[in-house]
């Protein structure tokens, strides 16, 4: 930095627009682990011009977040830049001191983190957390509270002055993310690092927030380094896309070009399996998944199949405590009816709070319905005895969202899969072991994995184990509650493929609960769209996608990132 006298932090106030704001050259980052150093990023190059939006796309573990965090000096304790340069406005930050980073953070480089639930300190009011950002960067001014309200209002938080006095737990996910965007942009940084800023949010909220972020950054002239696993989202929001794979940049260039004409095999795979783009892929070069659906299901639309699951006028009312013994009724599920035909997939789609998971729990008999009936294979579920329920559980199995949380970490893979067999008293030790091997075969996991523990497996492998566990009792119906939402795009495609193949082989029936319409397109035959506890649209998958009737469904379809591209 030679322009020290031109501004307080040593930056020229009138930067040359031709000069890149951020230039990463041959960057290498490694983490020290007990097993020796792990190279997380190798030879990464990227350039962000002032005011430009650049997206880094890749699956988890690709090094995309690590690269971006290095630019703001936030690598975790055991991570180190081992080579290359990070030039921010000409200054090499790869060797910058912590003191220098403290000067830069906030007012020169801002950050919007991934998970709005864990990134706000739960014990401080929202306003306090915004105010300290302003103060730390000397921007609080004479009326800090007024400034806080302004910043929050700019980020699209309604009633900002009042909201500033609330705690994070009183905010919804979308509102928290707005607060985090307010914090990230409060000090008008020239570069904003947005690390998966909306992947934890519903699609419609995601769209609103990204739109708002677009508007704000273009008004302020902020450059954005957007990190995402969603190629469709990247292509829609960024001018330039950088694809990272196993710590290396494998492809970079203008967004649409990469999408239309991917060069690197990894990018090609990524484009092919991006669910948000599936609406196009289905027609031009059908993915395996789509073929499976067509082949198995088409003949069954004649209605010859029996309805294995019938749900009639299902209603669930929760009492919400209001303190002092008063309570208020909250109708989570309101008069929901649908039927699932044997051997097909019915998807229930909706945003968080739409009641879709409550329906799943009632179908699984984990929750008692307030009203209405659930009929399984011709038998009413209510008034069943314990013994009958036990038999019922054998025929209906769940797969849950979080493959990290739904497997007992203290159970080996073998024990996890074998447990349901043992509980239901099926076979002896020897035949159970054979069955477990067979199940692992089904889900394409090597049988040698049997004696390992969940923490030794990747997210995709764990979800395969969860599927194997669900299949152990040869159920007829599997309830998938957001079964692929926590997975990377490519893994998600693999799991959907697997589920499809299993449906074909074992004549399974799926009830698929998801917030992701793009996934629905790939797997479902029939779709119920839920909003605020009610079904607003109910039809075949093709009908819902090609000819959506309700406004809500139309909004949902429009909000799929990348939906507007290439149509």
């Amino acid at each position: 930095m030679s322009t020290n006298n031109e501004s307080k932090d040593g930056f020229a106030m009138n930067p040359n627009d031709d000069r890149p704001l951020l230039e990463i050259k041959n960057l290498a980052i490694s983490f020290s682990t007990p097993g020796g150093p792990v190279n997380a990023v190798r030879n990464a190059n990227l350039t962000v011009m002032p005011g430009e939006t650049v997206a880094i796309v890749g699956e988890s573990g690709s090094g995309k977040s690590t690269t971006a965090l290095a630019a703001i000096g936030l690598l975790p304790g055991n991570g180190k830049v081992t080579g290359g340069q990070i030039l921010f406005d000409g200054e090499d930050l790869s060797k910058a001191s912590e003191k220098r980073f403290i000067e830069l953070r906030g007012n020169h480089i801002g950050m919007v983190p991934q998970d709005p639930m864990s990134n706000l300190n739960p014990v401080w009011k929202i306003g306090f957390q915004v105010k300290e950002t302003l103060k730390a960067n000397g921007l609080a001014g004479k009326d800090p509270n007024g400034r806080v309200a302004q910043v929050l209002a700019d980020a699209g938080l309604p009633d900002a002055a009042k909201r500033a006095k609330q705690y994070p737990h009183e905010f919804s996910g979308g509102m928290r993310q707005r607060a985090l965007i307010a914090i990230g942009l409060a000090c008008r940084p020239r570069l904003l690092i947005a690390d998966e800023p909306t992947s934890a949010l519903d699609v419609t909220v995601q769209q609103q927030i990204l739109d708002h972020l677009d508007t704000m950054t273009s008004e302020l002239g902020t450059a954005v380094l957007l990190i995402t696993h969603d190629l469709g989202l990247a292509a829609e929001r960024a001018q330039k896309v950088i694809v990272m794979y196993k710590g290396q940049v494998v492809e970079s260039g203008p967004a649409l070009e990469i999408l239309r004409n991917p060069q690197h095999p990894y990018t090609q795979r990524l484009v092919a399996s991006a669910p948000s783009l599936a609406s196009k892929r289905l027609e031009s070069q059908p993915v395996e998944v789509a073929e499976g659906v067509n082949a198995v299901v088409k003949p069954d639309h004649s209605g010859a199949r029996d309805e294995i699951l019938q749900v009639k006028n299902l209603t669930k009312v929760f009492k919400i405590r209001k303190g002092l013994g008063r309570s208020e009724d909250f109708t989570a599920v309101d008069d929901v009816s649908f039927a699932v035909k044997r051997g097909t997939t019915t998807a229930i789609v909706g945003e968080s709070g739409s009641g879709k998971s409550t329906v799943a729990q009632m179908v699984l008999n984990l929750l008692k319905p307030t009203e209405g009936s659930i009929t399984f294979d011709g038998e009413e579920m209510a008034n069943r005895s314990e013994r009958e329920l036990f038999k019922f559980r054998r025929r209906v199995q769940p797969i849950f969202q979080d493959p990290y949380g739904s497997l007992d970490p203290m159970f080996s893979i073998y024990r996890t899969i074998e447990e349901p067999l043992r509980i239901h008293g099926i076979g002896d030790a020897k035949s159970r072991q054979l069955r477990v091997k067979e199940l692992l075969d089904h889900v394409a996991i090597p049988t040698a994995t049997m004696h390992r523990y969940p923490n030794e497996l990747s997210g995709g492998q764990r979800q395969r184990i969860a599927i194997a566990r669900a299949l152990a009792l040869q159920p007829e119906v599997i309830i998938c509650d957001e079964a692929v939402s926590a997975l990377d795009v490519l893994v998600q495609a693999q799991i959907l493929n697997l589920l499809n193949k299993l449906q074909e082989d074992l004549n399974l029936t799926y009830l698929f609960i998801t917030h992701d319409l793009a996934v629905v397109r790939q797997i479902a035959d029939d779709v119920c769209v839920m909003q605020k506890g009610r079904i607003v649209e109910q039809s075949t998958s093709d009908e819902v996608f090609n000819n959506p009737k309700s406004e809500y469904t139309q909004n949902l379809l429009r909000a799929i990132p990348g939906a507007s591209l290439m149509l």
Partner: protein
Amino acid sequence: MIPVFFGATLLVYFLVFATPGDPIAALSGGKPMAPAVEAALRAQYNLDQPFWIQYLLYLKSLVTFDLGTTFSGQPVADVIGRAFPVTARLAVMALAIEAVFGIAFGVFAGLRKGKAFDSTVLILSLLVIAVPTFVLGFVLQFVVGVKLGWAKPTVGAGAPWGDLILPALVLGLVSFAYVLRLTRTSIIENKNADYVRTATAKGLSRRRVVTVHILRNSLIPVVTFLGADLGGLMGGAIVTEGIFNVPGIGLLLFNAILKGETPTVVAVVSVLVLVFVIANLIVDMLYAWLDPRIRYV
């Protein structure tokens, strides 16, 4: 709170009642006594009544703040009134020592996890936990009090603050080690939290990140421990007060148990129960202040 109080006094009253040994015999020092005198004494202390009546009479006097008299004729209330402030002073000092040093050392150890300071402190704290209080007490009394002469080895009349430093140190030392370890673990857990990274990304100084964002969140479990420990310190004072001859509740209780002096034992324990219950109430309130999420549950 109220059921806890009744339950505890009843239990203690029963335990003392059931202890072998006759209080009147103990009072006379094992010497023979005229039957009339003995009967009069028994009547005076309600010892001729069945257990339930004794307990109810005791409760009645408790509510009217008449705690009865000791065998030597002093009102129990007066005896406790003299001893309680001493122990309270001792416990508060011990609590202050363990809180201030325990949290400070814990924070530094947690922030420097795996470094020399952290390892040293961990080993030392383990040592402190492992050595029983009475050993620690006698060693410190001998080394610091007698050999080095830095502090008085025993506590003088009126138990002034200065004299209590050494006993308070002994009393607080074990809890200090626990507080240290608890704080350290809590800091290590919180310093990698997402919101701490976000706070750093805002451009805050390291000091502010630590004090505002790591410390407050890390103190939540520590405060719970400290509150519960205050009661423990007052009860645990028996050993320490014995070593340093502190005229406090512990010594009083110890002597009363030896004499089988039911009114004193039960009164002292009642006071301890009350302190314990109030300390927990304060912890609950502090807890709500530290963590706004539980205010609404």
